[in-house]
């Protein structure tokens, strides 16, 4: 999945260079952000043993 997301980021960068409409750029970038946060959530496997 990590490889796929890096390739997605590269794709979003290509969209940024090619697309004329801002919405496409923001959409591609936001999709990358969402899957990155989902991957982060997947790798967070335990709660912190801290008291604030």
């Amino acid at each position, binding site marked *: 999945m990590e490889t796929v997301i890096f390739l997605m980021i590269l794709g979003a960068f290509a969209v940024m*260079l090619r697309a004329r409409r*801002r919405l496409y750029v923001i959409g591609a970038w936001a999709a990358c952000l969402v899957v*990155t946060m989902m991957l982060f959530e997947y790798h967070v496997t335990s709660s912190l043993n801290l008291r604030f």
Partner: protein
Amino acid sequence: MITMTPATRAETDKPAAPLPLKRRAGFAFNHVFLLGYCAVLLSGFVIHFTEWEHPCPLCVVQRMAMMLCAMGPAYVIARSRVGQVVRSDVMTGFGMALVGAVAGLVMSARQVLLHIMPPDPGVGSTLLGLHLYTWGLVTFVVVFAGCGFYLLVSDELVPGPVRYGWVSRAALWLFALVILANAVVVFFEEGVHWFLPDNPVTYRLVH
């Protein structure tokens, strides 16, 4: 047909007025921002291939957040290819950078807090006394500060009709290569599995 009188020819030959220094500085700031993050991401490779420390999954997601952050200045630079860089371009770019920095800050803070309790020695090698994930947190805080100062004086720093030169082209190409290199290295680490293991110690593609 347009005939060129000596007066119009003199007008055309006149060099364009140089761009104000503040606008050039605003455009240069975006290059420094993008190249700075490229340097940070490349330094991760240096640690990886000199100390043979494979990046853990949390380090990898922080690299992704850094890239999402760096897409902001890359967008501002890329806009100069097709015309003037206007205020809305700068706002979009810095919006991306700030939201990316929030995501990265959450990730690196999580990893710092995992190892904050003594006597936990932390994970991986250190650079100038700080672990790499702590440096990650520092870079995201620097992005906040840098974007904040830029936006304070953004009226003067909006680049406008800047030239898309070889430095801009090289910066965008370097960024693309850094993303591709990360994809290749992680593919070697991950192999044909869906996710990286919690503590990667080998290249699963070839083992």
